[in-house]
Structures are given as C-alpha cells and as structure tokens.
C-alpha cells in the first residue's frame, strides 16, 4: 500500500533586537553566565514586564515577509509550568490571539506550505547539569524575545520540510529579524509527523520530534519516523501519541514522554500587560522596511544576469552576499568571472573560516581591480589565486600584492620560448610519450614550464609554444 506523510513544523526563532522582550537587558549571546539579567527578567517579586516595541515591530516584519495577516488586536497570555530555568514559573506567550496568522511559504515547485500562526514569547534560561550531579542555572537567555512559527501539516517529505526550513531561514535572515543559528539555539525546530494510507483507512498517531540540531537532522529524523510509522501500520499496529527525541549519533528517534495526558499549561491572559493593538499605519510603516525577498531576488537574478540557477543559489545565500555580488558587478562587468570568483574562492574561504561577508578585509573596489588584473592578463589565474589568498588574509590591495610577489604575468614570447626549450631538453621521455599519443605528457610539460617561470608565464602562450616546438 502507498502512504502519504503529513509533516508540520514548529519553529522557535530568537529575534535580533538589542534588548530583551520585557526589560532593557542585552540579548547578546556573548558574556559570562548570569550577567545579562535584571530583577525583571529574573522575575523577582514585585517586578513587572513592559513590552519592547521593537519586538512587536520584528514580529510584524516576519509576519509580512511570510505572507501572514497581522492581527490588529492581540494579547499576551501566561503559560504556567514549573521548571528551574523559568524564573516566574510561567512563560509570557500568546495563546488564542497570536500577532500573525494565515501565511505561507512557496516552494520551488510552486507549492504553498501554509503557516497557521506566528506568536510572540519570551525565552527561558538554561539548566546546565554537571558531571558531579549538580544543576547550574544561567538566566542570560531568560526574556530574550522569540517568535514561534507554526506551519500547517502541509509537507509530505523530508525534502519538502528541508526546503521549507531553508526558505524560512533565508527570509528571516534577509529581513534581519533573526540570525537563525541552530548551533547557538537562535533557531529551534520541532516536527509533528504521521502517515496515512492513500485510501485514508490507516492513519498513524501524530508523533512530536525534538532535539533536532540541524536541518539535516530534521530530514533524517523525518525519514526515520516515516519508515517506522509505515512499518507499524503494516504490522497492523500503530504509533503511540508521544514525544520522541532524535539521537544524532545513533541515527534514530527515542521515546521521551507520552502525550496521552497533555500537560495542562493553564493559559490565561497576562494581567500585567495591556492588549497589543496594531493599526494600519504601523503595519504599513513596517512593510516599507521589508527588502527584496529571496524568491523575488532569485527571479530577478536569473533574468538580469543569465547565470545557472544553482550558481545564483550560492550568490544569494545571504542578503549580504547578494549585495556584494551586485556591488562588484556594478564596477566590473564580466558577470561570469564575478560569479566564479565569489562562488569558488570567496565563498569557500568564508565557509572554512566561519566568517560573514561583513568581516572581509578588502573593499569592493579592490576586488573589482583584482578581477580587472586577471581579465587584462596582468596576472594569470594561478597567480590570481595567490593574490586573492593574500587579499583575503591581509586586506592589502591587489596591485601591492602583485608588486611585492612579482606575480606579473610573462607575456614575452621569446622569454617563454627559452623556458620551453629548456624544459623540452630536460624531458626527452615526455616528448616521446606525446608523440606516441599520450596527451597527459603535454599537461606535464606545460606544468614544468609554469613551474620554471614561477607560475608567471601566460598559460595560453606556453600551450601554443610547446605545441609549435613539438610538431
């Protein structure tokens, strides 16, 4: 029998406001334990929350970018539960009137994955369990603003869920409301999954998956669960309504707790806060701040630059990368060259060093000049890689590097011919191989010439001259 998988996602994303949701403490991720706290985010008795307006701005922005309706009237509620990292023993969240609702993200296949709601809430602190058996508490994250994005169960495969997450992340980063770093916990994702036979007669119970530390883990956990659900249904059994955690090392999901008896959070309206009323002008003011979103940018890049789609995906992996690309293209018109150098050399190094494009040491002008040097033939591609490495590491101008390292390309035919002759003299065996039809010999000889010229000979000229001499 064929089965259809139903996947819904719940994504928590920390907002990039400077201060926390109900007090003026910093949201910075760096800092010693329990230094980003005050009586308010520690929930000391008598203190009261006051909503940070920027947080509401950010939530509206996320809602608009995700095609949501913005609620003109919403409120905060208390979600009550005891846990040592929750300072007030309730989380201020939103229950029945979320700030945004009814949005969607479109996939590449033009499918709408619907978003049921986006609501505002505060993050909790962190418990750290030591090897000695004691528990330590760090409240730096307590009160950091979060949005929780809840999708409809519209995804039918791990790939689709993965794509949804990639697109969601790109949008949230593009509009600069979240940095979406799963490793720092600024993006967290839970999955709700079940399967249904095609004729609808067999349906597995919904299982919630937690502890998913990367998008890959999300995809793997979905695939694992899909199989487990189908397997059980085929044995005429069923899944248990429960929460399971993904074990990345074992590549399997493990039962955490039953959901048969749902925890009762005793939600009720937060009496310490008024309602959140958002008028048309407020929404429009936020709408104006939304930049070109990834889907639109991609369409435009395809039209404007005529590059392969997969290259464009790399060029616009972040908004800043896309801006960098477009700024360089303004100065240096060879789009293919710009694309190649950014994708291959620059992107690789950024990834290797785990840095952002803001942190690069050279300017757009220098990068354009650098490309110009290659284009004009002042340096060849090989030398170019050396120059780029130096630019990337030191921020020196390309001209200076070329001068210092003496990397100017040798264009003089006579000078190159001398080197070619010397190489041929030293490698009679290769000449023989070449004449016997072994093409690899030619490559070897070119390599030897380049080596002798310390990489500076114009490779095209070397190629022509060797062929001339050999024939």
């Amino acid at each position, binding site marked *: 029998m064929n089965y259809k998988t139903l996947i819904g996602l719940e994504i928590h994303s920390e907002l990039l406001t400077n201060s926390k949701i109900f007090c003026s403490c910093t949201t910075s991720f760096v800092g010693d334990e329990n230094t980003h706290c005050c009586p308010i985010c520690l929930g000391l*008795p*008598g203190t009261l929350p006051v909503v940070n307006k920027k947080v509401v701005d950010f939530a509206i922005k996320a809602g608009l970018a995700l095609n949501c309706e913005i609620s003109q009237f919403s409120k905060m509620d208390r979600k009550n539960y005891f846990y040592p990292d929750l300072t007030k023993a309730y989380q201020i969240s939103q229950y029945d009137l979320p700030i945004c609702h009814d949005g969607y993200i479109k996939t590449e296949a033009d499918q709408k994955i619907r978003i049921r709601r986006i609501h505002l809430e505060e993050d909790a602190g962190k418990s750290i369990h030591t090897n000695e058996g004691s528990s330590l508490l760090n409240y730096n994250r307590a009160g950091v603003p979060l949005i929780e994005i809840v999708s409809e169960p519209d995804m039918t495969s791990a790939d689709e869920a993965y794509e949804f997450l990639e697109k969601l992340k790109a949008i949230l980063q593009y509009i600069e409301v979240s940095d979406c770093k799963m490793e720092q916990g600024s993006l967290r994702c839970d999955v709700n999954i079940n399967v249904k036979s095609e004729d609808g007669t067999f349906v597995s119970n919904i299982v919630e998956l937690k502890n998913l530390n990367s998008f890959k883990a999300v995809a793997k956990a979905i695939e694992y669960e899909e199989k487990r659900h189908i397997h059980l249904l085929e044995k005429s059994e069923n899944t248990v309504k429960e929460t399971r955690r993904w074990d990345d090392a074992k590549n399997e999901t493990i039962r955490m707790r039953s959901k048969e008896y749902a925890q009762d959070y005793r939600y009720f309206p937060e009496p310490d806060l008024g309602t959140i009323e958002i008028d048309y002008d407020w929404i429009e003011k936020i709408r104006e701040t939304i930049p070109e979103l990834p889907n639109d940018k991609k369409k435009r890049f395809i039209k404007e630059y005529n590059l392969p789609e997969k290259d464009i995906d790399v060029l616009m992996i972040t908004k800043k990368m896309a801006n960098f690309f477009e700024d360089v293209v303004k100065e240096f018109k060879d789009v293919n060259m710009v694309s190649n150098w950014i994708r291959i050399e620059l992107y690789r190094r950024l990834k290797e060093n785990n840095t952002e494009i803001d942190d690069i040491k050279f300017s757009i002008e220098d990068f354009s000049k650098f490309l110009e040097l290659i284009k004009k033939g002042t340096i060849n591609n090989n030398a170019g890689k050396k120059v780029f490495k130096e630019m990337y590491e030191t921020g020196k101008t390309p001209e200076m590097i070329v001068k210092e390292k003496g990397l100017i390309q040798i264009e003089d035919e006579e000078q190159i011919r001398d080197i070619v002759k010397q190489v041929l003299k030293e490698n009679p065996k290769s000449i023989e191989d070449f004449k016997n039809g072994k093409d690899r010999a030619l490559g070897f000889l070119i390599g030897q010439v380049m080596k002798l010229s310390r990489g500076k000979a114009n490779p095209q000229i070397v190629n022509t001259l060797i062929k001339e001499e050999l024939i």
Partner: protein
Amino acid sequence: MEVYKLTAHEVRDKIKNKEISSKEVTESILIHIEKTDPHIGAYVSIRDEIALKRAKKVDKDIADGKEISDLGGIPMAVKDNICTAGMATTCSSKMLQNFIPPYNATVINKIYEKDSILIGKTNMDEFAMGSSTENSAFKITKNPWDTKRVPGGSSGGSAAAVASGEAFFALGSDTGGSIRQPASFCGLVGLKPTYGLVSRYGLIAYASSLDQIGPITKDVEDCALVMNAIAGYDSMDSTSANYKKVDYKKSLVKDVKGLKIGIAKEYFEEGIDYDVKKQVLASIEIFKSLGAEVEEVSLPHTKYALSAYYIIASCECSSNFARFDGIRYGFRAQGYENIKDLFIKNRTEGFGDEVKRRIMLGTYALSAGYYDQYYHKALKIRTLIKRDFDRAFEKFDLLITPTAPTTAFKIGEKTKDTLHMHMSDICTVPVNIAGVPAMSIPCGFKDGLPIGMQIIGNYFDESTILRAAYTFEKNTNYHKERPNRR
C-alpha cells in the same frame, strides 16, 4: 505634647515653623513604638538608624532654608509587600522571611523624593490574603481600639501603626478591601485609588488586575498629601494610566452642594450590622443637610461580586505565586529527592494555609475544562459589575455604602470559618472588580469601636471623593477620636 497623636499635616506645620525638628519627631515616634508595639504588633521590622539619619538631613535642609515638601521629615510605615531596597520585604510569609529586594517599589522612590521618613515595615495577612492580619506567619496584629480584636486586613499592620500613633501615615495595598476595611476597623481614612493611578511596580502581586497601593491616614487632608506624592504614570508598569496630574490638595473644599450621591441599596441588605447601617445612613443625612442631592440607586450584580472576586484573585495568585519555588531565593526546605520533590517541599513548608487554599482554588479554576466554567465566567461578571458602576455614575457623582458589614471582630472569632471571614469584604470587593476608587472614613462608633463609611467615586475622580470626605470631616468629630488602648 504627645506628638504621636498629631496628624501628618499638623506635624509638618510644626516642623516647618521650627517648633520641633524632624529628628525629634522621629525619635519620639521610635520611643513610642518601643512602648506601644509590644501590645499592638504593627511592625515586622524597624529601621531606626537610617530613619534618624534621614530625619537629620531634613533638619539640615530646613536650616539651610530649603523648601521641604508636605510630607518632608514625617515618619511613616509601609506594608511589607512593597519592595524596599536593602530592607527585608517578607509579605509576612515564611517563604520570603529572608528576601531582601535589590530595588525599591516606585511608590517608595516617590516617598523618598518627598523626604518622608520610612520607619519600618508593617505586618499583614500572608501575601495580603485575609481580612484580619491573623494570617501572618510572624504574629497577630491587634486593634489599638481593643487589643482583643483584629485591626482588619490585610493591611492591618499599617492601619494599627497609624491608629496607635506609631506612624503618621502608612501605605497599604488593597486587592479586595485590604486598605479600606482595616481603616474602617481602626477609625482611619483609607483610600483605594483607581486601578492604574498608582504604580504597582515593586508591589509583590497578589492579584495583578485588582491590586492597588494607597494611603492610610488619620484624616482626609493627610490622604490628599500622600496621594499627591504617590499618584502618577510609571513607565515601569504597563497597567499604569497616563492620566493628567491632579493636585489633590485643591480637592480639600468644604462644599457638597449639588453633589449627587447615590445610596447603593444592595450594600445595605442582609448581613450588614444594624448599627453600622444606621450610622452610615445617618451620615448620608449629614451630606443631605449640607446640600447634596441623595437618592437610592441599584447595582444589581453586586451579589455576584464576592464569587467572581475569589475566582479572579485566586486564578491570578496561583500564577503569581508560582515563582516562589525556593530555587533562586526564598524558603528552602531541607532534604529532597529530586527537583519536583524540592518544589513541593519548599512550597508546602513555605506557604501558610490560606495561601495554599487560594493557590489550589486558582489552579483548579484555570485547569483545562474548567476555565470557561470559572475564570471566563468570572470575567463576564466583572464586565457586568463594571457596567453597574458606569450606569450609576452617569447619574451620580458618588456612591455611599458601609465599608465593612461590622465593626472589628474578636481575634480568633472567624479563623475557623473561612466563608464568614470572606464575607467581611462584601462591600469593598466590587470596587476592585470595577477598578473605581473608594475611600473609607470614620462615621461613628459602636460600643467604642469605629464604624467606616465607604465613598465610591467614578474612575480617576478621587478629587470628588476627597471633597465629600473633607466636607464630612469638617462637620463631624469622629476623625479626632484616638484610641485609649484597652
């Protein structure tokens, strides 16, 4: 001269005229406390050294010719659920016995700005839950008019301190009558301001949507002075109202001509002591004789107020008190097996019975499947009660009722009977539910015990309440009586 018998404004005049220094006043009050408080038990903590230091500073300011405020240099007391930086704030609970907040409540900062001298923190029913100050984890406060009787509650310590002359004025908090009922039992003026007029920042919440801080004073003029000091918008409290600043001294006008006063008839029905009723109605006659227009009015949903109150307040407190888990501060039990066990032990041993009773009631009422039946229904009643008041204030400027059904009852008389204890809030609770302001002023005596009259005003119209109360005071002598401890 027995300084402690004076009102705050009388002492202010003497300090300003240099008849007496703030230091002398403060010293005499500290001595009076030492003599009196062992019999009354108004205070849970006294801060004599800092108080004297502050008093000396005021004296120096006066010597330097600086203008001092209306409350400058005057010793006062604060209920122990209002946070004072560096000074224990216990809510008269074992749970917070050693809790020293690192911040001041907004009202404390405002009182300090006026150079009032904070003498100490006063006893209360644990976490403001009670009507007699018998629920304190530390001690029972006694009524200065009769020490066999309760001072009322939950701000019983504050009221007893003012009535016995151990402070010239005090701050209390009122969630369902906790300022007005003890003011009534102790023959004082107590005002619960409009919800949102005084900042709640730093008031350890019992029921967030009902709590208000207000003054307990010896007369109406003092009440106006304290209101001038503590009222006003606070950006730290989202429920604080951005209402225009009013000078309440200007409301101290001896004139009620043309004022429309409603006799809220539901407040004079079953359960109200005959003499209390008689005395309040007689007081209304005084208003009438002074030119006020008096008529009966009905607030038909009053009978549901107490039930709605206990649902709303219990629900909110069950959540507000959840933070007292003994993990970061507060009472920590010895010996536990795991985190859940620790939570349970801390809370079981740290809270008193009445607190636990209300937490359980609220937790139950908010539970899935019961929310609509209880909390949501209580909110609907709340809307109806608000409408009753809105309708009444379309026609009337003020409403008058008794403050409490009886005069002060005997210690231990109602502790076994929770329902009867709760009944003592029957006249005051609707006011908190609606959020309107109301004052209790002394209007007579029964067997030597004070009777209180409640004057209810429209939202943010404390001025008219003060005006009527001031006029009444100027035409009667009840407020001049002082207890001779029995």
